[in-house]
């Protein structure tokens, strides 16, 4: 945690100008740039994404049988058909922005991914995605925080772990200090500089001795991170490489994640979320409710990749949702809570241009989970663990995912 002394040091003139110098060099390449930590970005799609619409198993007649109104046409049937990824799968047309990333080898798809726990409760299932201990509710912390704790070479930067959302997500609960804020612009004490500095100093002193431990620790990190961000905002630049983010919460948040990465503030993990995936009714097909959400998602990720440019090589972004949706469409033009869904893996070192899927007999009735859902043949943690090994060079993930054993035969080989 941060004590008063470190806060006062940081707020001093020397600290700020030093930071400014680093920022100025942050954009330059070459020996002046400090060694940068590799970063992991996790996007949680809350509400249960319909994986069968996002990445369409167009070769399966059962898919078209089960979804007379919702199915996406196979590739080559016009504007509203799936975009071919391989002989079995195609992207939803609203995800067109991701197609060049897939073709360029920077994006991989993991299909039939999910939790080994069969719950159809959003809240339990999201909890398991974030705690990393499916079926165990008593886990107090999140796997991404445990991963930072396990990372030997980890730095102590106040912006080491950031959640771009209004509340701290479960995935970042734990011993390593993390900060959450809805946007960089909001994350500072307002008012004239002299007044807000004085107030900041007073609050820092007060909270340094707060009885409530979580308030005390949160505040310590908050003041330090806020100071850093103010310096960063002074030299704020727009997105690089002409990246055009959608004007949506997800677009705005990923733009700020990219900004933090480009500014070299020592960011190691960033988390954000997006909602609206719980499409029980009026889901739509190539157009409609789900298509709108997917377009935002695809365009945001594509802008993020463009923005980072070369730097994408040091970053890995993973998307995950708590579970998928029923294979069969329901009576209200939607889908109900199911099981397996899809994950996207974008960035450096990813062996892209491939749909990783232990598909087996696919959507054959006998193959379905509880007779109705796409099974989850790849554990979320299989993907997370491979990313942690690749990005953070973790030798073992035993401390990150207690009770989970990565089996060699389950290895996807997503990185390398």
């Amino acid at each position, binding site marked *: 945690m941060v004590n008063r002394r470190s806060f006062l040091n940081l707020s001093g003139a020397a600290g700020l100008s030093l930071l400014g110098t680093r920022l100025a060099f942050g954009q330059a390449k070459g020996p002046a740039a400090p060694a940068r930590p590799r970063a992991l970005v996790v996007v949680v799609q809350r509400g249960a994404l319909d994986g069968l619409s996002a990445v369409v198993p167009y070769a399966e007649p059962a898919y078209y049988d089960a979804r007379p109104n919702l199915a996406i046409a196979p590739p080559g049937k016009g504007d509203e058909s799936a975009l071919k990824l391989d002989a079995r799968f195609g992207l939803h047309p609203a995800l067109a922005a991701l197609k060049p990333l897939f073709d360029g080898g920077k994006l991989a798809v993991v299909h039939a991914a999910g939790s080994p726990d069969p719950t159809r409760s959003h*809240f339990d299932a999201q909890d398991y995605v974030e705690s990393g201990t499916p079926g165990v509710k008593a886990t107090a912390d999140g796997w991404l925080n445990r991963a930072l704790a396990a990372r030997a070479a980890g730095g102590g930067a106040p912006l080491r772990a950031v959640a771009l959302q209004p509340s701290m997500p479960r995935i970042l609960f734990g011993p390593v200090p993390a900060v959450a804020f809805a946007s960089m612009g909001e994350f500072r004490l307002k008012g004239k500089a002299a007044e807000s500095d*004085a107030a900041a100093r007073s609050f820092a002193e007060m909270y340094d001795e707060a009885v409530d431990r979580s308030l005390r620790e949160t505040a310590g990190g*908050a003041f330090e991170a806020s100071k850093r961000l103010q310096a960063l905002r002074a030299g704020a630049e727009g997105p690089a490489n002409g990246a055009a983010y959608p004007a949506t919460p997800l677009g705005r948040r990923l733009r700020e994640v990219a900004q933090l990465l480009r500014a070299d503030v020592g960011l190691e993990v960033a988390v954000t979320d997006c909602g609206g995936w719980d499409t029980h009714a009026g889901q739509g097909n190539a157009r409609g409710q789900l298509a709108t959400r997917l377009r935002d998602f695809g365009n945001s990720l594509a802008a993020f990749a463009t923005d980072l440019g070369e730097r994408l090589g040091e970053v890995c972004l993973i998307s995950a949702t708590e579970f998928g949706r029923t294979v069969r*469409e329901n009576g*209200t033009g939607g889908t*109900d809570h199911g099981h397996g869904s899809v994950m996207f893996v974008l960035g450096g070192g990813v062996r892209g241009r491939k749909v990783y899927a232990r598909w087996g007999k696919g959507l054959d009735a006998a193959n379905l989970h509880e007779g109705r859902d796409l099974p989850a043949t790849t554990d979320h943690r299989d993907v997370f663990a491979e990313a942690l090994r690749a990005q953070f060079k973790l030798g073992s993930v035993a401390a990150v995912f207690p009770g989970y054993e990565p089996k060699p035969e389950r290895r996807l080989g997503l990185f390398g």
Partner: protein
Amino acid sequence: MRKLIVSAPLALAPLFVALGCSGGGPAKAPPAAARAAPAAAATKAEPPPAPLPPPEPAAVQRAVHALNRLGYGPRPGEAEAVARAGVDAWVARQLEPASIDDRAFEARLARLSIPSLSMSTAELQEHYPRPKAAKKAAAMAALGAGGAAVADEPKMKPAAIVQELAAQKLLRAVASERQLQEVLVDFWFNHFNVFAEKDKVRWYVTSYERDVIRPRIFGRFRDLLGATARSPAMLVYLDNYRSVAEGAAGRGKARGLNENYARELLELHTLGVDGGYTQDDVRAVARAFTGWTVERPDGDAVFAFRPRAHDREPKAVLGAMIYAGGEADGERVLDVVAAHPSTARFVAKKLARRFVADEPPPELVERLADAFAESDGRLAAVYAELFRSPEFWAEGARGAKTKTPFEFAASALRALGASYDGGPGLVRRVEQLGEPLYRCQPPTGFADTADAWVNAGALINRLNFGLDAAGGRLPGVAFDRARLAGEGPAADAGALVDRVAGSLLSAPASGPTRATIVEALGRRAAGHADEEPAATHPLLPQALGLVLGSPEFQKR
């Protein structure tokens, strides 16, 4: 909503007998003391009689706790008034809101004339139409009128409905004397959460809170549950209005079963996720509710049962067979789940978490569940058990809950003795704090534990809110700053801080908080002589802002 107002002293005497109030019981709360409570609250306008001796510090501490938990925190001087009149008497009156004279507040709310609050759903749809519908109506009127002037009143935007409802919620939390009622409306709305931005819910949510939730929070759980199940807001929010029996004759698009309401009914409204139901139960419950729908959704939007959409086959729900084969199937399901022991425990734990601690003592939860079961789900009996429990009053429970953003905002205004004009600015500020009122998308409602609300960004937002509040920069909020500084000069910075903390916290500030503010005042109080009135101290706003942002003000 429109309850008969009974004058307080009359209603009190029988109440003590009925409730056997906690902490010393009726003997310590004689009628004379009980009468002083409404007097203190109701006669603010009149000059106070001769100064009374200060109340016992222990009684003041209990009063602060009661005001923080049954309400949205003490206003300046309120804890002393409650302590003097008897904390148990205050609690008892809160449990019987009709016994509290709230006419002054209701009159003030009426004077603000926020139009949507008293409108029916049909009126809301007419006066706050969808932009498209409004345009069409205007075009039709222009065409059909044949030149005759159509001087229709200007239409309001639909988004204003939710904004006005949120303003109402803030107004009530800040200024209603029926504090527990407002806390419980918040609690039960959140328990049966609907998201105002889903489909047509925006037009239904005003009536949902006013006519479905508010009148039933002291009644039987089963009645509250049943009313939510039949409400257009819930039927639309959780999709049941479109759920029809598999294979039922449908017009146009394929129609069939939708499990959404059935699952959340079991998981979030009644049994809880570990309450012992299966996917088969979810399915059977969904079938039982087929045909429960909304008629005239663009008009008065009322509940309707459509026999042709209903699955008439028998269903097994949690071991009970349901054969009725009609509208009664859903009612039968509600009977079964409301009476299930898991529901008693789930509701008990949720209430204990709200009122006692994030991790409430299991023995307390057990007793509350018993009270729920033994009283056939009479909620007033559960509340009474809760507020007389030693766990509620335990030293360790005091200040143990972290305020939600809404609680923080409301309590800050109350602490300042502020009034609010019902405008949209303050609603937006609460949203910025992280709690967009009536716009919580998932059916869980907003979290009621600290971990969801304590984080760096939220904390900075709170500090900004406190500084803005104290500096008079919150839109639509007014208060008398000088009154909070007390009469005459303060001997020194320490004395000033003690006065400010006394006003805002109803308790002394902690050592570090006090020292920090004294130091801040000392550093920057140039030009202020100690013999000048404290009310004109140039750093009074800063001192108030620091107290509102202090760690102790984040707790309740």
